[in-house]
């Protein structure tokens, strides 16, 4: 981006344009604070998932705070089936992907046929059908971002991670995939990394972003 408009990349690749806002203010972190694992008020208990860095594919499901969240989710719908998407989200949050075993467990929990749960799970792109790296990097390459160089951004991520689209880098840090429109069209290129949006990403920003991620504890 260039021209008369002051464009400044504040380091997390957001663009606050004419505003003087911090990252937390734009993302809303300062308002939201830390949302409890148990889901907070029931009305928002189905509004997760986090995509966590630490993936524990064999972790127990629906225990402790997650049991609480599950219970709250179930209160919000007239039947159990309707809780399927939130419950799969919850399971993926804990395990990092939705394995056949996870589907089976969810099916049993919600009293749904196993094949049905598989059918639903595979319909939605956000459920990872196989394990992904610590950071799932989804680069929007659809038209608005594409016009502003999304293919180059995708390329830059792949190069940095030294991997192929859909694959995970050797050390298990990054899985890079092409994504459809993330509804961040005014902030091209829009990239979703785990649960977070990175906006106005340009190829030059990529190493910085990745290094920052890699260095982070969580």
């Amino acid at each position: 981006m260039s021209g008369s408009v002051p464009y400044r990349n504040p380091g997390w690749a957001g663009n606050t344009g004419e505003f003087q806002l911090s990252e937390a203010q734009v993302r809303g972190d300062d308002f939201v604070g830390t949302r409890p694992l148990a889901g907070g008020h029931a009305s928002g208990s189905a509004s997760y998932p986090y995509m966590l860095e630490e993936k524990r594919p064999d972790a127990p499901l629906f225990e402790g705070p997650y049991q609480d969240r599950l219970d709250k989710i179930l209160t919000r719908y007239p039947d159990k089936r309707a809780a399927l998407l939130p419950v799969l989200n919850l399971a993926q949050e804990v395990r990092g992907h939705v394995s056949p075993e996870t589907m089976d467990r969810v099916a049993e929990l919600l009293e749904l046929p196993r094949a049905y749960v598989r059918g639903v799970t595979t319909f939605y792109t956000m459920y990872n059908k196989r394990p992904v790296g610590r950071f799932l990097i989804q680069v929007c390459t659809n038209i608005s971002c594409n016009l502003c160089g999304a293919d180059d951004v995708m390329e830059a991520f792949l190069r940095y991670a030294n991997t192929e689209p859909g694959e995970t880098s050797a050390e298990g840090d990054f899985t890079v995939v092409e994504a459809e429109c993330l509804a961040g069209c005014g902030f091209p290129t829009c990239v979703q990394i785990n649960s977070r949006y990175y906006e106005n990403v340009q190829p030059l920003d990529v190493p910085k972003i990745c290094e920052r991620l890699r260095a982070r504890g969580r």
Partner: protein
Amino acid sequence: MAYPYASDREVRVISEYFGDPEARTLDGAKRRGRYKGLEKALSMSPDDVVEVVKASGLRGRGGAGFPTGLKWSFMPKNYDRPHYLCCNADESEPGTFKDRELMRWDPHQLIEACLLASYAIRARHAYIYCRGEFFETNQVLAKAVEEAYADGIIGADVMGSGHEIDVTVHVGAGAYICGEETGLMNSLEGRRGEPRTKPPFPAAAGVFGMPTTVNNVETLCAAPHIVAHGAEWYRQWGSEKSPGTKLFCVSGHVNKPGNYELALGFPLIELIEDVCGGMRDGNALKAVIPGGSSVAIMDADEARRCALDYEGVAACGSMLGCASVIVMDETTDIVKQVRRMAAFYAHESCGQCTPCREGTSWVTKILRRIEEGRGTEEDLDTLIELTTQMVGTTICVLSDSVAPPVQSSISKFRDEYLALIRRGERVGAA
């Protein structure tokens, strides 16, 4: 203020507090006038609320432009069965990024709107179906809902009115088709997000088999303002058939992309040249998609004379859709961008209807072949015929959405297709 850039040409009704973090908090929202419209609505009868919205001429902002008051009036006028409101926050149409801004900057505006609409259609439960990818936005919204519950705004006794309305933030899991209203309902029920055949219409048998109204975030957000200030107030902007203000999501090759709230009927060229600070790098305008990826592409001439309301855009051979203005300059490779949109539809087709399931991917493959220099002139006819065969033959209109970009690009930018084809032929001959 529109975020991240502002323009004094805007009329900020629903976008007033974009970029204002304080508006997110309940206190901040109340200080900014939120929940006044709801308070007024609760003092009226539900049917009177519907009448006001009807009189305002508000039209659906999710793409189809259906009159909102009329849609609400289809709901049964009793409490015999549970009614549901579904707020469609699955925003996924390429080029569209307004609902996310509405939710992340001004969540209480949406909550107020959901309560008001629920009251009007006699729903006791509103589901806000958010895109799963909007994690940060959803957390803002969920937090705001939580605040509103704590304050007694939502719940068993909405603002002390004695009416019970619940609001639940529900998130999807990655499927554009769940933005289609019946796909949304299936998804909300925990099914594959496959659109349903109509009839039955949602107002008769919608989510969980009950009368349901589905409205876009932006549509709903306008309602409290209309109720608070009256239908005539809203009609001061726009035209008879397209009254009010609308968020225009401008993306692509402009200097200041972003959401701008404008009176309907605003000239497209002024949006680009003035509001958005002109074309990037001073390049020449080549094409504009005025309403998201499912509408016909306009060339520069059409764009220059286009007024941005439902009728004005239609007069230029396209559709306003959800007012997602994608601006392309002279450097744009049209064939590539059309292929990219077709690939999107192939990826997002739910797969029920054969013309859509097979057609979207077939069209994408042909476009890809042309792009790689292996196309023929005949392919262009095939593309037009195939996309025509995809119109009107399917359950929902995703299938129909492929035709406008493909056909309009072939008719308006045929040279670009031919150049790729000729280049391929030369390479092949050599």
